[in-house]
Each structure stands twice: as C-alpha cells, then as structure tokens.
C-alpha cells in the first residue's frame, strides 16, 4: 500500500502541476519521455482512486476528498474524443483554464 505521508505529498505535487502554466505542463510531459496530454488526467486518476481508502484511514479529510473528486469529475467531463487533449488545447482552451483554477483551489486544501 502506498505510504500515507507520500500520498498527500503526491496529491499536492499533482495539483501543483495541474494548476501550472501550459508550458510547465508541456515540459513535464516531455520530461517523462513524451507522454500524451492524457497523462495529466491519468496520473490524477491513479491518485484519486486511492483517496477514499486514505479518507477511511483518516489521512485525507472529507474536504480534501471532495476537492479531489471535483477535479476528477471535471476531467471525466472532458474525456473521450473531445479535441481537448492536444498540446494546442492545453495552451489555449478555456476548459484547461478551468482545470487550473480547480487544481489551484484544491491545492490550497493540501498544503
């Protein structure tokens, strides 16, 4: 099982990335070897799946759990062949600006 302390730190790091400017996000994707923009959602999803059990263990508060759910719900609404998962979209699409706002708000709950 993932370390509980690491979990909160990993969520905070993920939210920091999601709230960052597009060029920072693009640099991250290049840094991991050229992953799809999808990685921003898939990495969040990997952590979000652990959140309920972390909440049950008292590691994550209900408020933190809800804020993770809010941003994952936003990612769900964008998912599929929606044209929102390109580098171009990441740079200019309003929906990604909304993701950054949600992530920044959620990050405040984790630091």
């Amino acid at each position: 099982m993932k370390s509980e302390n690491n979990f909160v730190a990993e969520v905070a790091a993920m939210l920091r990335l999601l709230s960052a400017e597009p060029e920072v996000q693009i640099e991250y994707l290049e840094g991991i070897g050229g992953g799809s923009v999808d990685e921003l959602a898939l990495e969040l999803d990997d952590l979000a799946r652990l959140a309920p059990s972390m909440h049950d263990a008292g590691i994550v508060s209900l408020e933190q759990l809800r804020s993770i759910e809010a941003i994952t719900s936003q990612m769900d609404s964008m998912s599929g062949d929606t044209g929102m998962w390109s580098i171009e979209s990441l740079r200019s699409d309003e929906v990604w600006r909304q993701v950054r706002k949600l992530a920044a708000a959620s990050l405040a709950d984790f630091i």
Partner: protein
Amino acid sequence: MLRLLNLGVVVRPAIGAALTFMLAAPVAAEAQFLIMANPAAAATAGEVLTGAAGGTVINSRIQASQGALRPVGSILQSVDDVMANPSLLAGKSPALVQTILQKTPGWKVETLAKGSKAGQGFVFREYSKRGNPTGQMIRWHPGGGHHGPDPYWRVTSHTLGKSEVIR
C-alpha cells in the same frame, strides 16, 4: 560456508499446492540464495507465507520458475518482474503482456479511465484483499491523436514510483 534451511512453505491458494523448498543460504549478506524446487511448480519466493523453521519471506528478489533460478526483473514472466524492471515492457504488445500477467491474483485488467483514449488502452491494476487499489499499476496508452505520441507503457510501483514513458 552454507547455512541450510529446510522450510515447509505454503504459497497462496491460487497456486493450489504446498511446496517444500530446500534453501541453501550463504551466510554472506549479499550472497545469492539457491532454491531447489519442484520442477513442475512455479512460485515466487516473495509469496512465502510461513516456514516450518520459523522463517517467513526468504528472498523476494529471487524467483523459482520451472526449477530454474533467476533474479526478479531479468525477464518478463510476472508482475514482480515488471515492478522490479519496468523497461522489460519496451517493445512488448499489450496483448502479449496481458497474456503473461492476466491471471495474477489481486490484479485486474481495466481500460484507461480518462483522457482522449478513455475506454481504450490497457491498465493492469493491483487491488488489496479489501478491494482497494494499492497504487501499483501497469498502463499501456495507444498513442495517436493529432500530433499525438506513439504507443507507450507506464508503470507505478511501490519501490520505484512512477516510471517514465517506456516504448
């Protein structure tokens, strides 16, 4: 000098049998263990639950498979190999990897949950006995899309963390 341990060990029920290993362990800390196992059986030493000599897990870095001894992560035969050495996935198709890994107890086959390829791809995720994800997973992304990347793998393990993209 060798220290001999004769352990009656029980592996997880899915394997369906109790196996007895004769283990010869060099006293030197970095020495390799020798495992003489039933040639017809294959088991991961790290799955050992109990030992008649009071031992538990002997050495999770060694696997006995078809009677042969090899370091975990040297070839792609199990989830443990991937967790130890994610680069084993380079150049492998999802169909091949699924065939090798799909019957691993506690691991489930899924598809990508989010992004442009939601519902596609291949995710192999570990769950605890309570049904909660443990955080370990193996993921294949089909790539594609407008200026999208080539297909790739990523792995998250408790020991190595998140891998980079593997192709």
